[in-house]
Structures are given as structure tokens and as C-alpha cells.
């Protein structure tokens, strides 16, 4: 394919996508203060991350503008490796999401997180495969994207910056992300049970 670069035509880039994702990628710090994980700003007062990143019922959440808030656990599902936290209102617009069921192998994706503590670092690659790691297992997005510890809980997004998955594991050099539609179902049931609990 000849990507013709006319003098006036700007070269397509991911800088705006990166900026957009930096704003909605939070840092999760546990009370012990050991290391940092990532999280996604799901709604104005909700942050979602991996259960293995936030093991306490109260964690610190850091934003791109260096503000720090305390987050209270709503619910954690260790099996699904997902945890939902409630934060005080802070005025940052939450992430935009895509339908992870329409994702295709070969599509460009980017990951944002804090690999090895390098805060809000962008890595890029493509969707490697879709499906379980072993037959009959849980479905993941397998991405040919370089991740490191510190990416866990952070967003995997398409080339428009819409979040398609939550980076969760590294296996055989590949990034494994929980499809965002699975996260959506988890958040829906978590908020529903929270509402039911508060009315009784």
C-alpha cells in the first residue's frame, strides 16, 4: 500500500488518542504503597480495574493532573479478576467504549498504563487473536502489544481511542485483555446489587 505523503497532508498519528486515554487512565496505589497498577475511569464516580491490582477495600486513585483521591471498593470478583471502586466527583470526563464483539484480528490497538512504573506510557500493536487461551477457557483479546507489570487494569483501545478491553495478563509475550463487553456486564451487575443493597 502506498501511503502517499503529500506535503500538506498530515501523517496519521495516535497523539490525540494517547492524550484522550491518558486522561481516563488512573493510577491505583494500595495502602501498603507497593507498586502501581492502572485503572479505567468508567463513569464520573466509578473506576474499574483488575482485582489483582486493588486488593484492599480502600485504595488511592491518581489522575493525569496529579490529583489524588481515595476510592472505596464497591465489589471485587477475584475469579473474573475485576474490581469496581467508587470515587468522589472530580470533573474528568470518563472513557469512551467500543463494542468488543466487533473487534477484528489485525486491527490496530493501543495500550495505556504504567509499565514498570513509567506513568501513562502508550504502546501500540495489533489484535493477534480473539478467543480463549486454551479450548473451553475464558475469552480474551490477545494483542501483539508490549506490556509490562503496571499495565494491569489499564485500557486497551482501538485506533479512535475507544476502550475495547482491560489489559490483564502477559502470556507468551502477548497481551491478554478482558473484552470490555465482559467488564460492562460486571459493572452493570455490581451497580445493580449496590443499589439493591442501599434500598433494603
Amino acid at each position, binding site marked *: *500500500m502506498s*501511503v*502517499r505523503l503529500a506535503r500538506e*497532508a498530515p501523517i*496519521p*498519528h*495516535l497523539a490525540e*488518542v494517547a492524550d484522550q486515554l491518558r486522561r481516563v487512565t488512573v493510577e491505583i496505589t494500595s495502602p501498603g504503597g507497593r507498586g502501581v497498577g492502572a485503572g479505567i475511569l468508567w463513569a464520573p464516580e466509578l473506576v474499574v480495574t483488575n482485582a489483582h491490582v486493588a486488593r484492599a477495600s480502600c485504595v488511592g486513585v491518581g489522575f493525569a493532573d496529579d490529583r489524588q483521591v481515595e476510592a472505596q471498593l464497591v465489589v471485587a470478583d477475584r475469579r473474573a479478576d475485576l474490581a469496581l471502586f467508587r470515587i468522589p466527583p472530580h470533573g474528568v470526563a470518563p472513557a469512551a467504549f467500543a463494542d468488543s464483539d466487533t473487534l*477484528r*484480528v*489485525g*486491527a*490496530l490497538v493501543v495500550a495505556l498504563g504504567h509499565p514498570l512504573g513509567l506513568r501513562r506510557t502508550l504502546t501500540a*500493536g*495489533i*489484535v*493477534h*487473536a480473539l478467543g480463549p487461551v486454551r479450548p473451553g477457557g475464558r475469552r480474551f483479546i*490477545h494483542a*501483539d502489544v508490549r506490556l509490562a507489570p503496571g499495565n494491569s487494569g489499564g485500557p486497551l483501545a*482501538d*485506533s*479512535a481511542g475507544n476502550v475495547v478491553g482491560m489489559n490483564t495478563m502477559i502470556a*507468551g*509475550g*502477548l497481551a491478554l485483555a478482558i473484552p470490555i463487553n465482559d467488564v460492562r456486564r460486571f459493572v452493570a451487575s455490581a451497580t445493580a446489587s449496590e443499589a439493591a443493597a442501599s434500598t433494603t
Partner: protein
Amino acid sequence: MTTVMDLSNALAGAVERTSAWMFAVHGRPRLPSTGVLWHAGLVVTANHTVEHDRDVTLTGPDGRSFSASVAGRDPGLDIAVLRAVADGVPVADVADDRDVRVGHLVMALGAGPRASAGIVSALDVGRGRHARGELLAVDLTLYPGFSGGPLVDVHGRVIGIATSGASRHLQCAVRATSVTRLVEHVIRGGRIPRAYLGVGTQPVELPDPLRERLGLAQRTAVIVVHVRPDSPAATAGLIIGDVIVSIDGRAIAEPEDLVAVLQPDRVGAAATVTVLRGGEPRDLQVIVGERPSRA
């Protein structure tokens, strides 16, 4: 191509199209490799993934199984051509690899489909047994099972066959042109001929004074330790103790270099073998033969 999203869609579309002519190749225990329907009835894969004396089966893009047999092998290039009747599977779209440039975006694909992206990092890689102009080096990850799979451009056209057999450190692909040449041997003659001299060799160090006197850049050459009777080498007058320094001007520094020079196309052609005999260079004319098949 105007936005990153267009590029992303082009890549995903390319994977979709290419997966129509990719096979999982079951030619070794455990891990299947990948194959490409290069020509009607002929599937190309990596030679090192298809064991000798083994039944080979293919799994097609729609999950159907096909039995296959080895039609030809080129261990030098690490390419095997399999014969299989795969009705309803389209033939791969093979590109003209002369248009490939360093920096071009490419994908390596495995049956599934599975994909990996990167760029062409070098053209004209000459390494070990591989002649110059036959390999592309790529900056991408070849995941387990990707050997024998296609290296495609953003349109999904094949520019090479990925192989991890070429080098442990470099990710390489055999250029489509070289693969097509091998496939044409099978179409014309039903097999890939193996060029043959009939010598057994070992590497040998060249003393510095000798190298200086003869103006040789290479530090090593190969010494003939065995000459098969009635072979092309015997007919040309090679004898035990001859030190082969070059063939047709290409330096022979180690036995692997002989394999690189002895391409299938050389069968029947004349070659000038430069040897050192008693410390003096001497040119011998050899008509390259075809390796007798293993009885």
C-alpha cells in the same frame, strides 16, 4: 489512506482475506505450523515443521481436514511444498516482492487466524546457508506456529514465507519470488531437485601469510575430506585435500556456504570451483549434478 482508523480497517480486512487460503499444517508432534495455498493443489510451508516419514494433514480455513504429501523440500531455504487436494480453497494473492522497501508495514500470520505486525527491517539479508536476495528481515514477533505462514503487506498480498528456521536471532521471511521458483520446480518436474557435487568437507582455517599472498578476505575455507566416486566433483578432478575457497567467485568459508551456492536451479549448470592445492589456487570446471534420491 487518510486516518489511523482506515489503516486499522485495512489491516483487519487483510487478515480476513488471507485467512481464506491459510492452513494449519500437522507435520510434527504437538505444535502445528502454518501453510499457504500457493498454487492449485500445492501448499507451501516451512521445511523444518514437516518431519520426514510422517503423514501430514492440513486443517483448512473452514475447519475441514485434508491429507497432504511432501512434493519437494529445500532445506537450504527451509521451504517444503506439499501436495493436497483442497477443493474450494482460493489460491493466495502473491505480490511482486521487488516493491518491498525497508520500513514497509507488514504482518506475519498464523492459522487461526492469528496476526503479528511490524516493519521490514532489512532487504537482501545474506546469512549462513542463505544466499543474498532470498530473505527479508522483519521487525515483528514470530509466535509459536507462525513458521511457514505468510508475510503479507497491508493489502493482504504475500511477500514472503515466515520461518524461524533461518536464524535464532533475526526474524526472517523467504521472499515470495524464491518460493515461487521452488513451486515452479514442482509444477514442471514434480519435485525440487537438490544440487550435488559429491564432496564431504570440513571447515579449515587459512594461515595469514597464505591469505595475504593470495589476497583472500575470508579467514576460513572448506577442505575436501571425501569425494564420492563418479560424482560431479570426481569427474571435475577434485581430490581429497583440496581446499575450496570459492565457487563462481562466491566465498566458501564454511560447509553451509556450499548449500547456499548449490541452489536447485544450478542442477546441470557449469560452475567454477576455485581450490587451493599445494598452496596454489587452481580453477576446476564442475557440472553441478542432482543428488541421487535416498534409496
